[in-house]
């Protein structure tokens, strides 16, 4: 038993030591990892940043909706249009019918608590005929209902419920706005920035699970 390790050691070490000593050409695995640096380490390109966007789509939107189109930007080659929340549903319907953005790929929100209107409601649209994506954004205050787009894209049903569940954003005109991932009686909206990561509804946990919260 005692001999085994001592016998193995010399067998194991040789392949390692040249690599560590960097005397002999190291094994290909080590070589591929670092040494062959690309001749010109791609010179730091200008970091991507949002730039104003003014293409035909934006012009058509502006001609149709005027001031309701607040701002249009291009960020990482992706078009973003900020619209007035009050007209979200009309703009959504126009995008679906006239601009052929027939799929609502995703609907979500982002919380910016320091801003006057703290929420961004974000809609990622996709157009099958044009193979193009467009992001609609609307700002919403804490107790400000946002028009639901369920009648435009039925998929919004669950997505808006999730948004309500996580952020407490109320979607006006939603057929059945209630929590979806969390229990119905849960207090608080977890994805808000002022909801601490360790926080939870301890009363709910105590009553329903019969345990004291672990935090």
């Amino acid at each position: 038993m005692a001999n085994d390790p001592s016998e193995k050691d010399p067998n194991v070490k040789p392949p390692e030591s040249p690599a560590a000593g960097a005397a002999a050409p190291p094994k290909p695995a080590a070589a591929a990892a670092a040494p062959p640096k690309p001749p010109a380490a791609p010179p730091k390109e200008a970091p991507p940043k949002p730039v104003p966007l003014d293409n035909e789509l934006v012009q058509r939107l502006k001609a149709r909706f005027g001031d309701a189109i607040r701002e249009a930007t291009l960020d990482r080659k992706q078009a973003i249009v900020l619209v007035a929340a009050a007209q979200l549903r009309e703009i959504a319907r126009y995008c679906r019918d006239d601009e052929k953005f027939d799929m609502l790929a995703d609907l979500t929100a982002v919380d910016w608590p320091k801003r006057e209107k703290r929420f961004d409601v974000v809609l990622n649209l996709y157009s099958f005929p044009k193979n193009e994506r467009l992001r609609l954004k609307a700002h919403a205050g804490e107790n400000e209902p946002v028009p639901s787009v369920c009648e435009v894209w039925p998929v919004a049903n669950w997505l808006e419920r999730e948004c309500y569940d996580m952020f407490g954003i109320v979607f006006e005109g939603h057929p059945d706005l209630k929590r979806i991932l969390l229990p119905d009686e849960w207090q608080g909206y977890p994805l808000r920035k002022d909801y601490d990561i360790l926080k939870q509804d301890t009363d709910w946990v105590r009553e329903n699970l019969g345990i004291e919260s672990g935090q």
Partner: protein
Amino acid sequence: MSDTRTDDRSKFGEGVNATVLGADEIILNMGPQHPSTHGVLRVKLKLDGERVVGSECIIGYLHRGVEKIAEHRSYQQFAPYVDRMDYVAAVSNGLGYCEAIEKLLGAEAPPRARVVRTILTELQRIASHLLWLGTHALDIGALTPVFYCFREREEILKIFEKYCGARLTTHAFRIGGLQYETYDGFEQDVKRFCEDFDKKVDEYETLLTENRIWVGRTKGVGILSAEDAIALAVTGPVLRASGIKWDIRKAAPYAAYDQYEFDIPTRQTGDTYDRYVVRMEEMRQSRRICLQAIENIPAGPIMARIGKVLKPPPGEVYHAIEAPKGELGYYVVSDGTTQPYRVRVRPPSFINLQAFDKMARGSLVADVVAIIGTIDIVLGEVDR
């Protein structure tokens, strides 16, 4: 009473609670502990005899707050968490996340890394479809396919294990490329698997494709029209079975997909049988991609030079990939710090599951099991 029922069907997403029960209607709970719900999914069915007249999916039993966790981890630290969403296709989740952050940084993985990523992701697609096929057939009553499917899935998991040490939650990729070089014999392993695999798919097909019971249980069950599929933003094989030829690998190629030839299988009816046919063909196409890719893996570095501390410039990005279950999107917002300001996952299972109500109305209770199986959901991803 039949009037109220037709009225009921025309509405999307009306829960079973929304209408009053008729004299011969009952409410039946399926799950959350039910073997055919593939996890903890509870389905509330409103039945008129054997027929489903309304349904509501109750989800969230597996909610872990993944999106909240993301806001409290650095970009690299969050990468392993995404594997735990769709845990039967962890490699695909990792690919989507890493590419989204690369886009946010304005970086790109080197060609070698992109090809290896493509190979592993396609193997993962096969593995995910095999798991789907085995369990779906098992749910409907075909006991044999699951053994065959797991036999081949095991081969794929062994390749993953040899490559990165893990079988399920692999964390195979890193932001900027790959952590590990491919192991000695990787090419041969993949090639050996792919060369045999076509015959294996034939084997599954002899068991099912023309099997009268299988056809009887799946044809005409859970039909989803193309218009409904788009309105409900259903993606992946479910969308393609409804007749829409759309695959993100072709529509907006990522990784190295633009270099390979493959077809997008579609079917027209949009029933459970069509979705089965589409997924079977997709496995063959994935094999085709792997065989092309393995022939020519470019040499060179496997990691882009992006630095150890990632601070993407402020801004946002939405990046979508074609995961085995559909469009898997990551919407990431950066505020210029080392932690993401917001990570939103667009989960294909969650959104496809919403179409369940549409598919199930009017079908029999026994078909509900087939319909849940055919959507191919993973509750880890539905609930996040």
